[in-house]
């Protein structure tokens, strides 16, 4: 009887450990993956970020709204380590970005996808070569059939299978954004940073891109920060909206909450962006 009891306890402990391992791998949805506290950044005499505080949980879609020049892009560039903050903390997966060495920063960047406003496609390469670039240079994949499968799969996901051998100059603005999105998603990042993903697009294409962002977020289970002026994009994609003004966050909540905010500045912002 005692031996049966010991066996049951043993299997219980083993099962608990396995569950813990799986949960660590998948990530806890309440886990904070991006932690920003007191972030400051200046360019010369211009104080772009004065005091930014933001926590982003795993799987969350946070939209940052704000007027041009309020430091939205600077914030996400600090997250990815492209800019070094003048003060405050930026932690991603619990690691202080500014304190990382080159190799550690590279490893961190492999977990972060950054979609530029222009798409930033390599214009001397075809769509296929653009998508192969992070696979061969970042993930260091060698197996060509594996590379081809990944390229074809991600292009199918963004609905551009036919454009595989086209040059970026042959693509429309919306298609470039889709290819840019495919190129960032192909390495399976845990965090996606979108810098004005719908700017310069017509309303229909903007909606398509916003819906695609949401679909991809669900499919790839990414945590996202989306910088935009487009209220429809915010409406479609946001779990939470943060409003920036003059280098500081002035409000946060859902789109509906912020639209009905008692703060005149927040309301006026919504009127001006709508």
């Amino acid at each position, binding site marked *: 009887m005692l031996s049966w009891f010991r066996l049951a306890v043993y299997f219980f402990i083993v099962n608990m450990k396995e569950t813990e391992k799986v949960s660590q791998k998948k990530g806890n949805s309440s886990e904070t993956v991006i932690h920003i506290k007191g972030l400051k950044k200046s360019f*010369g*005499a211009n104080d772009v970020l004065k005091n930014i505080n933001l926590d982003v949980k795993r799987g969350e879609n946070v939209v940052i709204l704000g007027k041009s020049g309020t430091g939205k892009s600077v914030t996400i560039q600090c997250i990815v380590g*492209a800019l070094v903050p003048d003060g405050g903390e930026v932690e991603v997966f619990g690691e202080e970005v500014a304190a990382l060495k080159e190799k550690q920063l590279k490893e961190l960047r*492999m977990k972060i*996808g950054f979609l530029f406003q222009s798409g*930033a*496609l390599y214009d001397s390469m075809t769509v296929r070569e653009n998508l192969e670039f992070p696979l061969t240079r970042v993930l260091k994949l060698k197996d060509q059939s594996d590379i081809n499968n990944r390229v074809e799969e991600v292009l199918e996901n963004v609905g551009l299978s036919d454009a595989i051998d086209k040059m970026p100059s042959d693509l429309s603005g919306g298609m470039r954004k889709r290819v840019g999105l495919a190129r*960032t998603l192909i390495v399976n990042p845990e965090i996606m940073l979108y810098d004005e993903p719908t700017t310069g697009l017509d309303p229909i294409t903007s909606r398509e891109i916003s819906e695609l962002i949401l679909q991809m977020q669900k499919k790839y289970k990414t945590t996202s920060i989306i910088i935009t002026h487009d209220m429809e994009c915010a409406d479609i994609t946001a779990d939470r909206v943060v409003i920036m003004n003059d280098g500081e966050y002035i409000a946060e909540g859902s789109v509906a909450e912020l639209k009905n905010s008692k703060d005149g500045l927040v309301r006026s912002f919504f009127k001006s962006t709508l």
Partner: protein
Amino acid sequence: MAEQAIPGWKKWLEGSGDQVIFLKGFFRNVFRGGFEWSEFVRQCYEIGYKSFMLVGTTAFIMGLVLALQLRPTLVNFGAVSMLPKSLAVSIVREIGPIITAMICAGKIGSGIGAELGSMKVTEQIGAMEVSGANPIQYLVVTRILATTLMVPVLTLLGDVLGLLGGFLAINITSSVSAMLYFNKCLASIDFTDFLPAFIKTIFFGFVIGFVGCYKGYNSNRGTESVGLAANSAVVTASLWIFVIDAIVVQISSLLFYR
């Protein structure tokens, strides 16, 4: 609030410091693993093969013109038989390397400056950086090594075509066999003529690639900066070519021609 003007000397020092850091980044990446062979070969093709016609034509014409202009002077001194020797020494020691380097500075240096400048402005370099790829390894190392390799090769070809131009010029006014002409040319140049000239073309190639990459990679945002990067790549590389030439000539004079 008006921005405080930065003194010229401070800007110059900052620029020099940036160039040293860029140079350090280049050398660090050269000896790091993951060399981009396919991109290096592509750059050699773009830089070497696609510049061959321009360099060859210019060198051929330079050899022809030099022979036509030298001949009357040598005739006056009764030294027309010295023409192949004069041509060979001047082309191999100085004209070949300098003409090739200047053409490459104009064609390749400006091309690299404009290409990387454009990539910077359109955030392509930024996209490589934030994705965890190494743009220095892919864009800079391959281009600088390609120019360092291809400018000496182009110079050798330019020297041969320059001598051919001289042969044509001589045969316009008189009749000399190709065998006699090239025998005289080769007999008049030796190791001390060829080696310093060849070594300096390696430096020329390096400077053309380095300056083009540095100017393009560090161009400020905006389309104007692309043109500025291309322009300043040519001007700076040309200046450095003459400085290196003067230094190498001084050193080789001290070592070989005393």
